[in-house]
């Protein structure tokens, strides 16, 4: 139409989609929060930024994938021969991911970080980066990545979309839509009748073309009517799988909170995070607490990885954990690293901030906004939103 129409489109704000976008943001943020918990817990206890956390997450995704393959959800199986999935399948996958991640986390701590514990902190930090690279490139040698595999969607028994209409449309509009739909269905039937006598669907006879165009015409009228209906109402659409991610994340976070606040292990953990040496003097088995910290943090990453791999169905590569790892790390710092509620808050905030930038029409800056938010927050609260602002030398 007009030159530069693409640009002006970006600036238009559509408040009808705002509720949907906020829900999207919270759902994305839940995953960041789950991974951020691992960073924050390890930092809280060891004052170590575990850069290999993203790679633990990646291994969790692969584990979930392999378990799904073992169940028979292989990519080369035609859809009608796939087995039925159930909640139990998902639970087994999640537990397997959590178990593998916890093991890997413990091994990393035992063999990479523990020998460095009494060295300067920078050594541990560099070790962490080393482990991260080792797992990325080492994984590249052994894990399937060409082409990057994805989880079969049939693993997920909850594939429907849930719709919630916040503001309804006038009755009159829905009637118009219904009328248009009937017209379209009639045109479609006539065309399909005609199609039976046609040789090639994509090289039609003139009469076939006329009927096809009539069908398109009716379809366009239906779309127009639907469009009017849609803009008159405010609807939030959520995939059931994404809702499952949120519910499971909240449940895991709640369990973690109970564990940290109300169990002896949790008390020991808090003690170690306050003062490593004094806690040891008071009879806390520090090595055991550190191991438990890695078990919990890594298992949470495993759960998160299994859920993203299954419910979002993104391609899995040895670099699967890099971007989520960086974002979760930012979320942890944003909320105040070392602070558990802070990690959750940071994750949710980042998820919502990103989606709002997309909502405003600047999807090309969605990844940058996380870092902008981080810089702004750190300018005013150097310790993060909920963190302590004591100056520390790293």
């Amino acid at each position: 139409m007009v030159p530069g129409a693409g640009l002006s489109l970006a600036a238009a704000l559509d408040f009808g989609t705002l509720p949907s976008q906020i829900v999207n943001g919270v759902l994305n943020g839940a995953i960041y929060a789950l991974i951020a918990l691992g960073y924050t817990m390890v930092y809280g206890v060891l004052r170590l930024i575990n850069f290999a956390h993203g790679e633990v997450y990646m291994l969790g995704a692969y584990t979930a994938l392999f378990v799904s393959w073992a169940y028979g959800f292989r990519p080369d199986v035609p859809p009608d021969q796939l087995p039925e999935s159930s909640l139990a399948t998902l639970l087994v996958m999640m537990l397997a991911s959590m178990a593998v991640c916890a093991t890997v986390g413990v091994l990393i701590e035992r063999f990479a970080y523990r020998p460095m514990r009494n060295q300067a902190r920078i050594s541990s930090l560099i070790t962490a980066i080393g482990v991260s690279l080792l797992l990325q490139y080492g994984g590249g040698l052994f894990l399937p990545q060409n082409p990057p595999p994805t989880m079969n969607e049939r693993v997920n028994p909850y594939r429907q979309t849930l719709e919630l209409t916040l503001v309804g449309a006038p009755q009159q509009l829905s009637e118009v839509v219904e009328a248009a739909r009937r017209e379209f269905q009639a045109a479609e039937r006539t065309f399909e009748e005609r199609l039976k006598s046609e040789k090639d669907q994509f090289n039609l006879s003139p009469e076939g073309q006329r009927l096809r165009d009539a069908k398109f015409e009716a379809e366009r009228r239906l779309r127009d009517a639907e469009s009017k209906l849609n803009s008159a109402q405010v609807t939030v659409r959520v995939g059931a799988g994404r809702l499952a991610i949120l519910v499971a994340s909240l449940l895991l976070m709640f369990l973690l909170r109970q564990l940290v606040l109300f169990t002896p292990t949790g008390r020991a953990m808090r003690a170690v995070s306050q003062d490593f040496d004094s806690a040891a003097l008071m009879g806390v088995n520090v090595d055991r607490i550190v191991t438990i910290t890695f078990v919990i943090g890594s298992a949470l990453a495993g759960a998160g990885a299994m859920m993203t791999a299954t419910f979002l169905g993104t391609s899995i590569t040895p670099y699967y954990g890099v971007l989520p790892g960086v974002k979760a790390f930012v979320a942890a710092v944003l909320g105040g690293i070392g602070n558990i509620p802070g990690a959750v808050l940071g994750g949710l905030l980042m998820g919502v901030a990103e989606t709002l930038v997309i909502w405003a029409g600047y999807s090309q800056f969605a990844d940058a906004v996380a870092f902008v938010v981080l810089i702004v927050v750190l300018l005013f609260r150097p310790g993060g939103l909920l963190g302590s602002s004591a100056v520390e030398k790293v």
Partner: protein
Amino acid sequence: MHVRRTIPAAVWAALIAGVLATGCSGSGDAQKQEQPSGGEAPKTSANVRPQPTAEGNKAEGDTLKIGIVVPINGDQKPWGDDALNGAQIALEDFNKQGGIPGKKVELVIGDSGSNTEQAKSAAEKLISDGVLGIIGDVTSSNTIQIAKSAFEKGVPVVSIGATNDDVTKQGANVFRVCYVDSFQGEVMAEFAHKDLGLRNVALLTDRKQAYSVGLSNNFRKHFEQLGGKIVGEEFYETKQTTFTGQLTNLKAKNPDGLFLSGYFPEVGPIVKSAKAAGLNVKFLGGDGWDSKEILNSGGEAIVGGFFCNHYNNKDTRPQVQHFLKRWKEKVGGEPGTTMAALGYDAMAVILDALKRCKSYDSKSLTAAIEETENFPGVTGDLTLKGQNGNPRKRALVVEVRPLPEGFVMRKAIEPKDLGQ
């Protein structure tokens, strides 16, 4: 340092070509009312494709060396492996049919390692080893680097899978056997408008891939020329995992089609979440979709989507059937990507040209490649004569069907169908 002296001419020529080219596409919106057909753009660059001034390599003894630069390592390895196997089969076929009497053709392999720096140094190494011509690479950005080095030395390049329009503007020594993105965009725009009856299409572009950005722009240009409307465009980045924000925005624009110009690892998940976001529309894309994995990653949602491809395993043309038979003998199974057939064609084109060479050196090889007319390749009949290195050949529109059907060819669109 003596090399530097030869650079400025090439650089200036490339710059001018680049400026003219971007000038055309940049002001495309304003110009399009005046010029009815999109076929004008390639002609303006006809006069600016610079001739290489260097002499190039000469064959020594009875061995004629041809180089191939493809990614044998890195994340583009599946394409590189397929292309290399294809090229080797083409060479075997050529020798079986008699080859060149008294001469032996040798294929020298270079690894582009899936990145531009390594592609450049691999090409330079092959040129200093005395190859007469180079085939490769499978991607546009790598091919541009190879083409630059080859231009300086006067060695011809036949690219396998570089579809970006700018690739062959590097010099008159650069050719390709695949179609260009502007043709691909036009094919899909035509198909969307005419055969699918779409009028309001939304774009979803991978901002990190020049290929995706270029293809989206080409689709936009041609679809608007046909009278369709692009109702919105959103961006994502390679390796991104959630797309709900972008899709919610696009849903509000009420498109009847969604053009996904990115690569298959993202397209599959996008299509799935698009369905979940309530976008019950037709999905369309380019050759970036070409991988069996998209059937799995796109699930039920991708079924019924259409994309543009160079070649299809179910094609009944005799060249395709012969190629598939030879592939089965040598590699086993069916080729996983279209790069296998394109690798075969790139090698076959250069070998065919070698046969017609007046003398065995880079210069006459370049001239012989330029003379290629109606060459019966696996991916279609291709003509390079007077085409500025961009072959006139067809593109296939392929529909995604559930396994075991897979990719089903729906329509072959020849350049003449688009009035070119």
